[in-house]
């Protein structure tokens, strides 16, 4: 198979370049990450992140043939050649396919991604009804791979101010949690022309989420919650 991969080493390169590779996948190579791992044995200077290799850690998010995805979940079969691999768009490149996610996680931390409940804790645990727990489905599964935020034009335009689809999906995960008592504070924080309302409902986030989640739907629900809160 043929691959064309974005290469950039800040220590030696003035500007990035695309490097072509020819690779013969072996029988066990099913996913794009398998091919990249095999390529790494040929060219050990190629840098990319990976860890769990099964779509749980979100480390190997990259732009694959113009579309963000996880290398470990992308089948080799059906990939158009040459397979063009680039780092996540809109993120500063550290080296090759590795991007700097500092700002992405700063946005994530800004929405206080943990349960806030000032009431006296019960002896064992805060129970939820099945219906209350059901509301978290489609939200808690986010692995923070950044495929969505990196494919969002609103995030490209204002990466320092717009929280982005991943952060907003996580924000709604806690807003909709029956055990959380800080809904009003969370909504007040999000009621901002940049943090939430830069979303133009382009829906690239929902289109590329490798876990099949819908950040745009979560953003819409936050907007509805804001309207309900203020009416």
């Amino acid at each position, binding site marked *: 198979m043929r691959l064309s991969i974005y290469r950039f080493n800040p220590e030696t390169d003035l500007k990035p370049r695309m490097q072509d590779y020819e690779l013969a996948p072996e029988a066990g190579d099913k996913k794009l990450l398998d091919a990249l791992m095999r390529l790494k044995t040929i060219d050990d200077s190629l840098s990319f992140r990976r860890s769990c290799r099964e779509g749980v850690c979100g480390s190997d998010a990259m732009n694959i043939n113009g579309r963000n995805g996880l290398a470990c979940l992308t089948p080799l079969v059906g990939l158009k050649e040459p397979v063009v691999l680039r780092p996540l768009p809109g993120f500063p490149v550290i080296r090759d396919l590795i991007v700097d996610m500092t700002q992405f996680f700063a946005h994530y931390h800004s929405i206080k991604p943990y349960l806030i409940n000032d009431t006296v804790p019960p002896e064992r645990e805060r129970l939820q009804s099945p219906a209350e727990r059901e509301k978290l489905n489609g939200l808690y599964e986010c692995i923070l791979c950044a495929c969505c935020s990196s494919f969002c034009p*609103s995030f490209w*335009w*204002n990466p320092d101010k717009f929280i982005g689809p991943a952060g907003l999906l996580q924000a709604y995960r806690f807003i909709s949690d029956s055990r959380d008592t800080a809904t009003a504070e969370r909504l007040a924080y999000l*009621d*901002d*022309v*940049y943090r*939430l*309302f*830069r979303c*133009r409902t382009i829906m690239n986030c929902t289109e590329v989420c490798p876990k099949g989640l819908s950040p745009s739907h979560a953003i819409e629900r936050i*907007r509805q919650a*804001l*309207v309900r809160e*203020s009416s």
Partner: protein
Amino acid sequence: MRLFLGQRAWVLQRVTALVLLFLLALGAATLLTGPPLDYERWHALATSTHGAVLIVVFFAALGLHGWIGVRDIALDYIHAPMLRLALLAVVGVLLFAIVIRVVLTMAAHFAGGA
């Protein structure tokens, strides 16, 4: 201006969009039904009390909707504060002038008793 921040601008944009949609549909239905549209009928529609009020409401909603839309584009693409402020001021004045012009035209018509 708090009115144009966060969800208020977002709600205003959608409310004005609904107003515009309703008035456009109403206008289309009015024009497509009844006798052929000539100058006399157009004049009568525009200068009736209901017609005049709806035209003013339409242009007011259009001005507000347009300004919020331009503001959104400016927030996305123009990051220099003074340039953005200048653009929003110019567009705001232009849209406001259009609305005032419509109001004055209608007011002059009714004041003249025509």
